[in-house]
């Protein structure tokens, strides 16, 4: 039971962080399908720090270094989406899809090239091992509780305050609802949308690091982040683009995902002899059903997905 709770929290936290990222972006009016790719690229930066930083440093410094690297990589990578969809008015779904494919291919190529160069061709896998630093970030020995969970709570509270209580957040949201009106009172829509995309890049990057960290002390980039970016999008939609509801729906999805990961450890569930693929499917099936019932009254930002055109004011 303890194991299930731990994994539920691990997955819920990472889904919350990524979904919050998606929330910032969509609230500013940019659909971010590319979260999956951003997670991979951000995770790549973070994991490389975890793998090569000396394990003798204080854990808190390692933690911040890795998080910062993940954020930076995620932000840099999300600029690709920003440039395409804000400056060049590209189809946002297409740009996002390209980001997903590019992220996975680029990360695999980088890690493989690194491994080949490091071992003179002996190792051509896309794996990175970080077993020395992984235990340092744990909060309690032998459990899955880690420092990222504290960070998640901070980010969640911050998201609520930023979006609803600050001038910046309200302006950001106005760009997603009615950019023409926002522009007419002197808000730079392009700047706000860049902020939204960059924040989502930073959070997506952290989420990617959290996912790879949760997989054990070896990260395999060929499988990427196993669809968590998409799951986070579903969490965001189910959470109706509101931080507090996102946290609740992340717990729900996290629970089902955890069931897939550790469900067979329970006598009761093991006795039912449900094949593992069913557990793997479960989060996605639940997600579809939930979306079917909640999308009718969707509170999606009204202007999301539509490139802002000054001439339509």
């Amino acid at each position: 039971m303890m194991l299930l709770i731990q994994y539920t929290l691990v997955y819920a936290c990472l889904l919350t962080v990524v979904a919050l990222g998606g929330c910032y972006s969509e609230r500013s009016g940019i659909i971010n399908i590319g979260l999956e790719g951003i997670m991979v690229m951000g995770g790549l930066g973070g994991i490389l720090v975890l793998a090569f930083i000396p394990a003798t440093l204080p854990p808190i410094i390692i933690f911040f270094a890795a998080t910062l690297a993940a954020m930076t990589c995620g932000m840099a990578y999300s600029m690709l989406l920003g440039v395409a969809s804000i400056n060049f008015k590209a189809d946002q779904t297409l740009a996002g899809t390209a980001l997903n494919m590019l992220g996975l291919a680029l990360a695999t190529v980088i890690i493989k090239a690194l491994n080949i160069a490091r071992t003179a061709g002996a190792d051509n896998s896309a794996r990175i091992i970080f077993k020395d630093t992984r235990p340092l970030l744990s909060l309690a020995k032998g459990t899955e509780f880690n420092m990222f969970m504290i960070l998640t709570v901070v980010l969640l509270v911050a998201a609520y305050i930023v979006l609803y209580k600050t001038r910046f957040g309200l302006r950001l949201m106005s760009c997603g609802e009615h950019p023409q009106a926002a522009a007419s009172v002197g808000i730079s829509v392009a700047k706000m949308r860049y902020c939204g995309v960059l924040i989502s890049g930073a959070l997506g990057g952290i989420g990617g690091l959290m996912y790879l960290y949760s997989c054990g002390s070896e990260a395999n980039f060929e499988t990427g982040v196993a669809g968590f970016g998409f799951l986070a999008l579903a969490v965001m939609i189910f959470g109706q683009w509101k931080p507090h509801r996102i946290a609740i729906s992340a717990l729900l999805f996290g629970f089902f995902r955890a069931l897939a990961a550790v469900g067979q450890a329970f006598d009761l569930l093991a006795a039912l002899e449900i094949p593992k693929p069913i557990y793997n499917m479960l989060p996605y099936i639940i997600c579809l059903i939930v979306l079917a019932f909640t999308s009718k009254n969707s509170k999606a930002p009204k202007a999301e997905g539509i490139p802002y055109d000054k001439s339509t004011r």
Partner: protein
Amino acid sequence: MDNNNRRGFFSLPGVRSLLAALICILIGLMLGYIVLLIINPENAGKGMDVMLKNFLARNKTFTQIKHLGNTLVKTAPLILCSLSILFAYKAGMFNIGAAGQYVAGAGACLFFAYKFSAPWYVCILVAIAAGSLWGAISGALKAYLNVNEVISGIMLNWISLYLVNMLMKPFCKGAEKDTIAFVRGQSHSLIPNLGLDKLFSNNTSVTIAIPLTIIIAVVIWILLSKTKFGYEIKATGFNKNAAKYAGMHEKSNIIITMVIAGALAGIAASFFFLSGFSTWNTNQTSVPAMGFNGIAAAFLGGLHPIGVIFSSLFIQHISDGGTSLTGMYPAQISDLISAIIIYLCGFVLFMKLQMSKISAANERRRRARLEALAAAETENKPDDASEETKGGEAK
């Protein structure tokens, strides 16, 4: 007269799409070359050469043709996947679920082939049914419950992957991860060759699936550009509300579109797996890339059913070439290049806008010059000469 012709040529939408696609490819290849240079500068030129030549890099003509056959076998499903995406896109939907519809089709046709040893045409029909069902789910969710087709498609992708992995498990030999390979001659579930294998150095995977694919592409082209249904689909894509106002059944149109898109992806899977080229790996943890590469091919092909034939061939060509890079470079280099190309396809609209701006500016300049010329001529030679130039301009 000559001037008029040149202007007509560059303002043709097809020419602009082609030009934009070529620019995307060129920039994509250049960026890919830079990546190769960064990873391993010594072999970069050679690597690019191997990838771009693909089957031409083999030393004997016989093997060259055989490998060309292999590329074509994989190109056929890619064309169909991109047709699936293109078709949905015309109706204003982004069918990212093509990958899942492809998986569903693969599962269905392989299941019938293994379990009942059904003949190939039955297997194809079953694949179509499964793909359409998958598409219909997305379509119905979109039409009646307002679920974004991108999200539902992504969820269905994963569901189908795990489902088919589970379904195919009994058809593996012992503890192996791959399903049992079909043997040509023993299984009538394989699509017949009808002598096409002889043309490709006895490559038995080359079947009538390849010519059938071309026919399907042409049918889709005619359906979209010459029929009432195609017109309604495009109208729904342009403006859903206007289509509804004009009396079109936009809800059923959405569902039918997704059914057809799903069917195309289903056919793609059956054409690939019933050619005997490959088996299903029950351990795969990511959705087959075919459906996603279809997105690249669809946009690179300028969203035209005939254009995607060529863009699919190109993408499959470089990704096959990429697999022969192993040893020198990671094989994913070709994935990287096609991903870059997809990303650049996002800029196609912008490029076309620039092209029309340039040609409009040229046109203005040309007209101003003609007018100046005409004015000068009227000054010199009044009466009949000026009328002649004016007449010429009006044409």
